[in-house]
């Protein structure tokens, strides 16, 4: 039993999510279980999207990480809302603009890594500083609301399940297929396990890395647009919590920080766990300080208990 759990470290995240859910419902005396579940699914979506992007990057191997995700989400939220300009006709164009903005950021990140031969962490850190400034200068005084159609779309429910959550689940399955069954996905894993061996085996390591940073950028961009729709407006800080959260859900979800080993179901488990944990602490009446404190302690505890296989 324990062996089986060790082999699938992400099971813990689902167990944790379930535990937090049960504790919340118990505090509410069994009231509103469906509401809590729906809200958790809706909020988890944004963490899952950022998490999947970060997961692909982290899987590329030691040192690969995208620290520009928060700034990317912030800028894309502003760009998409500006392009949509409050009219339903602009939704498609706005989403494309958000994706394009993310794609450009991903490409710029990889260009820095490749041209300057610097660790990705410092390349994406520098670019995040610049993106943040662009966003502050561009989004100054910008209070554009999402078009009504787009706002409704982000909070639409089908039989009590948020539509976005269903779409994101489909996307997660697609990402799993991409990772396990396509040449690109196998190349990502091979690069992460041993970049040198992968290169000798004919993997176009550079191209794989470039594509992966762009994939992460696009996911961040789309996440920004959806967040702006869900929270009824773009703002500079909208992505802030998703930088640390994206790394946390990847690791808590059982993806190896050393790379070469990805875990998609774990992203969902960990995201639901993080969201339900916050819901639980809220229902207990915990303030912002206590919520952060417990989130941190639980992340450290999960890592300390489930981790311990760093080989890098």
């Amino acid at each position, binding site marked *: 039993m324990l062996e089986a759990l060790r082999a699938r470290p992400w099971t813990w995240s689902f167990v944790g999510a379930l535990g937090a859910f049960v504790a919340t419902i118990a505090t509410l005396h069994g009231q509103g279980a469906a509401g809590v579940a729906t809200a958790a699914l809706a909020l988890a979506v944004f963490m899952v999207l950022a998490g999947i992007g970060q997961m692909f990057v982290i899987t590329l191997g030691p*040192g690969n*990480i995208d*620290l520009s995700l928060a700034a990317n989400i912030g800028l894309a939220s502003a760009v998409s809302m500006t392009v949509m300009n409050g009219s339903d006709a602009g939704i498609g164009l706005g989403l494309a603009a958000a994706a394009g903005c993310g794609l450009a950021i991903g490409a710029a990140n990889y260009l*820095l890594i490749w*041209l*300057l*031969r*610097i*660790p990705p*962490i*410092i390349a994406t*850190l*520098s*670019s*995040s*500083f*610049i993106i*943040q*400034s*662009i966003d*502050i*200068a561009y989004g*100054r005084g910008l209070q554009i609301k999402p078009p009504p159609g787009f706002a409704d779309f982000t909070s639409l429910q089908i039989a009590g399940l948020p539509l976005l959550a269903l779409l994101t689940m489909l996307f997660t399955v697609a990402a799993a297929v991409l990772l396990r069954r396509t040449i690109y996905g196998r190349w990502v894993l091979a690069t992460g396990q041993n970049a040198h061996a992968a290169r000798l085996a004919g993997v176009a390591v550079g191209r794989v890395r470039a594509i992966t940073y762009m994939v992460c950028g696009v996911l961040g961009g789309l996440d920004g647009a959806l967040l702006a729709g869900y929270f009824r407006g773009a703002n500079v800080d909208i992505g802030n919590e998703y930088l*640390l959260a994206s*790394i*946390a859900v990847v*690791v808590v979800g059982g993806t190896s*920080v*050393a790379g070469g080993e990805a875990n998609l179901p774990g992203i969902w488990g960990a995201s639901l766990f993080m969201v339900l944990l916050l819901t639980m602490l809220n229902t207990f009446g915990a*303030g*912002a*300080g*206590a*919520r*952060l*404190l*417990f*989130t*941190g*302690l*639980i*992340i*450290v505890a999960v*890592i*300390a208990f489930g*981790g*311990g*296989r*760093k080989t*890098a």
Partner: protein
Amino acid sequence: MTARAPVRLLRSLLPAFSLALVVAAIAWLNPRAMSYFGFNLMLSLALPIALATVAQMFVIAGSELDLSIGSFISFCGCVVATWLDQSPLLGAAILLGGVLVYAGVGALIHLRNLPSIVVTLGMSFVWQGLAILVLPRPGGAAPDWLQTLMSSKPPFLPLPVIGSLLLALVCHLLLMRTGYGAVLRGAGGNATAIGRTGWSLLKVKMALFALAGLFGVLSSLALIGISTSADPNIGSNYSLLSIAGVILGGGEFVGGVVSPVGAVIGGLTLTLAASPLLTFLHIPPDWQIGANGALLILVLAARARFSRPEAA
């Protein structure tokens, strides 16, 4: 071999050269800034940033990374502006406790073989939460002695300059000129070798993290002494800024390649390039963070020019 020596020299001079360049640019834009008063004003925030950078440097010396130093400084700042002011003994004990927790984090990372990025990421939530619990709203007051110290005007050289020189000297002697300093750096370069020679790697990691905690406390003292009151988010930028400072100062993420003098120079360069230079260039403060990003990229581009081609 002979061709490499000048390249290495150039690389090691790069941090000092970039600082000189920034100072020269300021002098050219506004010659009046080149005075005791001007430097005192321009460098007012240099000391906390330099101290945070040195804290980060100790962690990077062990080939680890600390994403929690910023929120740790926030937490310590809140303690300094409340407990240390009202009941100095209790306040000092809590700050010491913080340093011990840092050593404990180092021990946890070593014993469970965990990725430091993730553990310190979790800890950043913990410190942030504790900071909010200590001081929910901006306020508090710096102890009088601290305010007096930080606003003192020593003869000939402004306090930030004297402080930075002293800091660079002390850390240089500690890390580069003592036997145990070499062991500390060696653990980042080749941990196995250090372990085989009979040094306890556990103690090394704990020492590095405790030093980071100690300098984090010093950074918060300097910061609160200048700002005279605290805010639970006061240090939030410092995690990423300190990493940038270490890299600007010629440090490398792996291999125990760090330089205390470089780290202090890196911190000073970030301080000067962010605010005074932009003010004199009449660039709006929106671009402050972006300027730091651009500076990082420029310096790293220059460094890539000087690095050996086979390093990629």
